[in-house]
C-alpha cells in the first residue's frame, strides 16, 4: 500500500486579453474560454476570501450583479451547485444554458461602464511535494492537522475537478486502505459550503470517528 504523500500547489494567473461588456459577450467568452479559465473564475474566491464568507461564489455572478446590475441573473449564476459537476465542460454548459435563457427573454442588452468590463483570466498550477506522508489513519490525522489550507485545497478541489479524478484524493486513498465507509462520507461532503479551515475541522472529525 502506497503511503499518502501530501502535496501543495501554487497558482500562476494568466490574462487572456479577452473582455466582455454585456451578457452576450460574457456568453461568447465562456463558450470559448479554456477549461482552466472556467475553473479559475469559479474557484478563485475559495482561497482569496479565506477570512470572511464570500457573498459571490464565482466571478461571473459578481460581475453580473455589480457591474451590470442584473441581480436576478447574478443570483442564478451564483446558485449553480458546482459540487454536482465532476467535469468542467458540464459546468460550462450549465452557465451557458442560464445565460442563453436570459438572452432569449431579454432582447435589450445592458453594457457595463467603461473600464468595468469582465476580464477573462485563467490559471496554471504548480504542484509541489510537502514533507508530510501517512501510511495509516493515525498518521493521516496528524498530517491533516499540520498541512496548509493550500494542500487541503489541492487534494479536495483540484484533484476532483481539475485533475479529472472525479473524486477527492483522500477518499481514493482511504478506500484503498479499506475504510470504504469513511471514504464515501468524505466523497459526499460538499466542500464548497465550508471555509477551508471549517473543512479541515469537518474532515478531522470524520476521521477521528474511525480511530
Amino acid at each position, binding site marked *: 500500500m502506497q503511503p499518502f504523500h501530501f502535496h501543495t500547489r501554487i497558482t*500562476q494567473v494568466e*490574462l487572456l486579453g479577452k473582455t466582455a461588456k454585456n451578457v452576450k459577450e460574457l456568453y461568447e467568452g465562456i463558450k470559448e474560454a479554456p477549461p482552466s479559465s472556467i475553473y479559475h473564475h469559479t474557484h478563485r474566491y475559495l482561497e482569496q476570501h479565506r477570512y470572511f464568507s464570500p457573498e459571490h461564489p464565482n466571478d461571473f455572478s459578481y460581475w453580473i450583479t455589480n457591474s451590470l446590475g442584473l441581480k436576478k441573473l447574478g443570483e442564478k449564476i451564483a446558485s449553480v451547485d458546482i459540487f454536482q459537476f465532476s467535469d468542467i465542460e458540464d459546468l460550462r454548459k450549465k452557465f451557458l444554458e442560464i445565460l442563453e435563457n436570459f438572452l432569449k427573454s431579454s432582447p435589450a442588452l445592458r453594457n457595463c461602464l467603461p473600464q468595468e468590463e469582465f*476580464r477573462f483570466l*485563467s490559471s*496554471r498550477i*504548480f504542484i509541489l*511535494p510537502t514533507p508530510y506522508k501517512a501510511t495509516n489513519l493515525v498518521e493521516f490525522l496528524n498530517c491533516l492537522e499540520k498541512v496548509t489550507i493550500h494542500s487541503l485545497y489541492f487534494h479536495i478541489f483540484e484533484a476532483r475537478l481539475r485533475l479529472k479524478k472525479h473524486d477527492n484524493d483522500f477518499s481514493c486513498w482511504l478506500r484503498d486502505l479499506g475504510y470504504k465507509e469513511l471514504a464515501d462520507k468524505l466523497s459526499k461532503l460538499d466542500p464548497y459550503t465550508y471555509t477551508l479551515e471549517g473543512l479541515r475541522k469537518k474532515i478531522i472529525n470524520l476521521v477521528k470517528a474511525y480511530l
Partner: protein
Amino acid sequence: MKPSIEDYRKIVGDEIIDELYLLAQKLKGISIQNINSTPSGGGVAEILSRIVPLMQELGVNIWWDVMEAEEEFFSITKKIHNRLHGVDIPLSKEELNYFLEVNYQNALRIKKWADIVFIHDPQPIALIKMKRKLKNRWIWRCHVDFSSPCRDIWLFLKKFIEKYDVSVFSAPIFSRPLSIRQVLIPPSIDPLSDKNKELEPRFIDEVLNRFGIDKEKPIITQISRFDYLKDPIGVIKAFRLAKKYVDCQLVLAGGGARDDPEGEKVLEEVKNEASSSRDIFVIYLPPNSHLEINALQRASTIILQKSLKEGFGLTVAEALWKEKPVIASCVGGIPLQIAHKYSGILTYTIEGTAHWIRRLLHEPEYARRLARNGKQHVKNNFLITRHIQDYLLLFLSLFNESDLVYLD
C-alpha cells in the same frame, strides 16, 4: 545591512520560505538577467534592488543590468510613458528613431546575456532584437497603466512586445489582446526595507521636527513623485476644502527619478500653489530618503493617493502596511489594494476626497478598522515574498507548457 531571506520567516511563516527554496532549486543551471533604465528612483528600481539579492540568496543565478542613456532619451521615454497613459503629447518619428538607436547601442554594449532576459518597462523594449541571435527566452514586464494608450504608441510597442515569449502585467485592467502569453503579477512592498520597517518613535518625532510639522495636529499626507499624473494640485484643493471644517496639516513629499525630467516643473507649480498656506509642507526629498518617507507615513493620520493615472500605486500598499487609513483614486491597480469602505476609501473627485478626509478625521474608530483590514490584505497579497514566488513560477513556466506542472 540588508535583510536575509531567513528574516522573512517571522513575517510570512516557514512554509512560504521553504517553498521559495524548493522553487529556486528547480531553476538550477538557468541564468536570468534583469534590464531596466534607472538604478534608483521609482518603483521598478526599488523592487529590483530588493528582489535580486534575495533571489541570489535562494540560489538563483540572477543579476541586474541598467541601460546607459543621455537625458534626451529619458525625455523621449517620458513622452512614451505619457502617451501610454493616453495623454496626447507630440512625439516625432525622429524621437522614436533616437529611442531605437539608444536601444541598439545598449544591445552592443551588453556583453553578458542570460538564458532568460527579463526586460522591465518600455525603455529597453527594443533590445528584443537580440533574441534572434541569442536564441534565449525573453520576458517583458509592463509596470505602466496600459488601459487607454494612444493608438500610435501602442502599435509601435506591440511590434516589439509580440516578439517576447511572455508578457507580465500588474493588473487585469492593463491586459490587452496580444499574440503572446500574459501573466498577472502584482508588484509588492518589502516589509523589512528602510521604507517599511518599524521605526523608533524618537526618529519619527525628529523627522517631523526637521520639517517643522506639528505632531499634535492631524497630518494628511501624499507621498509621490512630483508628477501631473499624481495630481498634487488636486490634493491641495481637497485639503483646503476639508480644512474649512477641521484643523489639519498637509504633507506633500516625494523625490524625482532620473528618467523623469518633468519633475522640477511640477514641483515649482506645487510650491506656488502652497505658498500662501503655513499648514502645507511641500518636501522634495533626495533619492534614498526611505527612512524619512517611512517616518512621514507613520506620523500621518490619513494617507492620500489622489492619482489621475497609476501603474499599480505601491505607495497605497506601503501606507496600508503601516496600518493607516488610505483615501485613494479608483485608478490603475489601486482598486486591487483597496476594497471601498472595507480596507480603505476609493474616490473619483477632489470634492469626494475632501469629504472623506473630514469623515475619517471625525470617525477615528472607523478609520482604524479600515486600516486594520488594509494591513491584513497587504500581508496576504502584496509582500515581496509573494512577488519572488510569482517570478520563480514565471521563469519555470518558460520551460513547462502544460497548465498542470508537477515539481516533484
